[in-house]
């Protein structure tokens, strides 16, 4: 039997050695961690067979769909585990990089953006379905809620080049006794009956305004101009308005709250053109001399307060914010309904939502309705994930 316990308390020296070892680890780890989190990376250069410290930047891309693939310079990015609609891409060398967001059955979104060391550049991707998705709205519906089309017909006659999201039936008799009236139909019918939206184009309105000025004196013109204010739609500080034949997105909020795509890195014209495209450089330097909406600085970035929207050189029948977004705009053009982004860095991605020349569209309560050949539909812009 031992006379003493075999395990004594932790010796002071032992504790001190352990403590100072951890202090040393802290001293070594802290600068390493700070360098890492600020974007410095150790990169092995296979050409020179040397390891060097490189400054990297990042890219933060939000997407409107969950099941999509993201590529940076042709290389697929691993899907995030938690926030699946937001991609933070690390370790990007400074320079121009192409980001592609794609998936089957949706349009591809592509952007080329400049990445700066230690800075994360943001982008918001969107992908509309390649085949439009329609929800039928009929006057009558079955007890199960299925839309009822009267008369004989086929799916292809009503939903040409589209998929239907909800069940519907063709009623072969004219009797509607077994069906119930769909109140939504009445609502939508009233909407299209009372609204002029989507029937008068921006071009027609412009010509009408020009005609009005043609036979009046300059004094009268000044007085009249103030009454012909352009149509303005506002959401989250962004205004959509037409000026002449063109459409603009204008930032009306506080300077600090301005969306990222209104701003560019402070640089000369050629650098700005190289980084964001000639049209952006032109816009920035045209704005720099304007008095009505001058450039302003936010931190060290130059911001313009308006961006011209790409209308594909077509006449615009309707423009509004895309439902649930203040970064995307819905345009009813001559050959169909399109969604375009306000972000014009590199280029504006514009994707068709519903093609055709003979339909009317209207947005009510963030729902897109169309009327074609006497039938009403809701356009479902998302694909099921």
């Amino acid at each position: 039997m031992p006379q003493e316990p075999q395990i004594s308390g932790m010796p002071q020296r032992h504790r001190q050695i352990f403590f100072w070892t951890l202090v040393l680890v802290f001293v070594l780890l802290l600068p390493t961690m700070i360098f890492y989190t600020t974007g410095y990376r150790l990169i092995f250069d296979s050409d020179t067979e040397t390891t060097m410290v490189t400054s990297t930047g990042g890219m933060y891309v939000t997407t409107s769909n969950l099941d999509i693939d993201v590529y940076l310079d042709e290389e697929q990015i691993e899907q995030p585990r938690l926030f699946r609609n937001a991609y933070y891409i690390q370790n990007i060398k400074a320079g121009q990089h192409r980001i592609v967001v794609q998936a089957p059955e949706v349009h591809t979104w592509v952007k080329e953006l400049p990445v700066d060391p230690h800075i994360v550049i943001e982008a918001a991707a969107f992908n509309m379905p390649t085949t439009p998705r329609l929800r039928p709205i009929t006057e009558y519906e079955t007890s199960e809620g299925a839309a009822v089309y009267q008369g004989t017909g086929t799916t292809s006659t009503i939903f040409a080049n589209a998929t239907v999201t909800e069940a519907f039936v063709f009623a072969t008799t004219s009797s509607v006794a077994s069906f119930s009236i769909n109140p939504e139909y009445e609502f939508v019918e009233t909407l299209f009956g009372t609204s002029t939206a989507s029937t008068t184009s921006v071009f027609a309105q412009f010509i009408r305004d020009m005609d009005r000025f043609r036979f009046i004196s300059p004094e009268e013109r000044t007085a009249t101009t103030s009454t012909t204010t352009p149509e303005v739609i506002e959401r989250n500080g962004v205004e959509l308005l037409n000026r002449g034949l063109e459409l603009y997105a204008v930032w009306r909020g506080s300077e600090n709250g301005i969306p990222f795509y209104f701003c560019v890195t402070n640089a000369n014209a050629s650098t700005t053109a190289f980084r964001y495209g000639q049209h952006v450089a032109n816009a920035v330097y045209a704005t720099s001399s304007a008095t009505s909406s001058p450039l302003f600085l936010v931190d060290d970035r130059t911001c313009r307060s308006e961006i011209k929207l790409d209308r594909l050189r077509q006449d615009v029948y309707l423009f509004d914010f895309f439902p649930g977004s203040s970064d995307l705009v819905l345009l009813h053009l001559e050959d169909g309904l399109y969604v375009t982004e306000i972000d014009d860095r590199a280029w504006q991605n514009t994707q068709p939502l519903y093609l055709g020349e003979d339909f009317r569209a209207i947005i009510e309560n963030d729902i897109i309705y169309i009327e074609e050949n006497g039938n009403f539909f809701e356009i479902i812009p998302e694909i099921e994930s």
Partner: protein
Amino acid sequence: MSDDSHLLPYARRADFKVARANELTGKDRRFYRFLEIVPGVAAWATLVGIVWASIYASFFAAYFIIAFAIYWVLKTIFLSYHVRYNYKRLKHHLELDWGRLIERFKCEDYYHLVIFPYYKEPLEMLDEAMKGLAEANYDLKKLIVVLTAEERAGKESVDQAYQIEQKYAGQFGHFLVTEHPDDIVGEIAGKGSNVHHALHDVRVKVIDQQKIPYKNILTSIFDIDTVIYPDYFNCLIWHFMTAEQPFKSAFQPVPLFTNNLWEASAVSRVMAMSSTFWQMIMQERPDKAATFSSHSVSFQALYEIGYGQANVVSEDSRIFWNLMVANDGNFDVVSLSYPIAMDATAAPTLWGTIKNIYQQHRRWTYGVENWVYLVYHFTKNKKIPLRKRWAVALMQGEGYWSLVTNPIMLFILGWAPIFLGTREFHETVLSYELPIMVRNLLIVAMFGLVVSSIIALSLTPPRPQGYSRFRYIVMALQWIMVPITMIVFSAIPGLDAQTRLMFGRYMGFWVTPKRVQ
């Protein structure tokens, strides 16, 4: 005029037993009040400072948070290592035959004075405590047992002591029931004042009567839910006999809150085991420890300071600081690394348990009043080595500061620059990498919890009948609650206690109900 010749010179000072600033006058009063304000101001300044820095100096705040997260990981490694080391020692001490180990010492002349203060705890709890004593591997005739009731608890509560006396008195050398009056001026109702009264009573009624030398008495002050392990007194006397300066040492066992562990809720078990782990860590750092809860000390040492204070909330630690200050810094804590079993906090409902744990921890963290006391006396007692004064003051201060601020900084304010930072900051890689880095470091720190979980399971008493094996899984997984329990039951009650002290809204003693009745 009272005779204070038995007191140590420093313990004769009028301000030796000061509890609050308003008990002093003039410059001393202002200084003490200033010290009462310091912990609360330091804690609030840190928390507000992080928010302020996140808004106006986001980059600095981010670097600070990274540094702090690394520090936390390393601290977790450091402390986990101590827990593991002490666990090995604890297991070893439990296996030893302490009765054989003390055979070489002449222990026959030594007595163990065991004081059990109680309030309204059930008879069953008193009985379990006595049963534990009666089953000790020790000559029970060398035990002086004092069951000390509170007059304010009512006759029924006091009568319980006499029932216990009837049942157990014959087994021990001496058995005394005392009743602490509730109208003594200058006291605050609570365990401290009850023990203070009992120590005086037992000296007059038993020790002096039996002419037992004070140096031959080891006093163990136990919470009423304390059930000793059989070799406690053997282990205690072995450490007493082998201590460098036995009369200048307090002997600290490891409190295992396991009496009712199977009945307690998961949150209660986590908090109970967390407290045990902290005490296990302190067992390996006795130079940085103070006494906590149930502990033992020579009666002579207590007599020399007039039995400690009857006017403080955190009396279990204050008694150590009284002893240290009165002995000019020459007083140690000796780790027993031997367990005593106590109750985890419990209530009939989960909400009740949460409330009780909160209040219990607010009372414990009100121990910050001890920092005020010791810093005040460090400025008065210049005989304490200057280095020791600084070391103890800084270490204790850091302990109370980190208890309150660290969990909040780590789990809440760590994300502040991301939400509050400037636009310029939000555009940087640092802003995006910060949450990833902090999250990863916290995951690494969480491995410390795996160690905790394994050790906690091995310290858990055998599964009683009627409890499913599934509960073991719950007991292993309950540790994921730690980030929440650290905030809700450490940081917030600590901040509550420090804020009260800062505003001079002094707390009273709150008796923790521990057993579901």
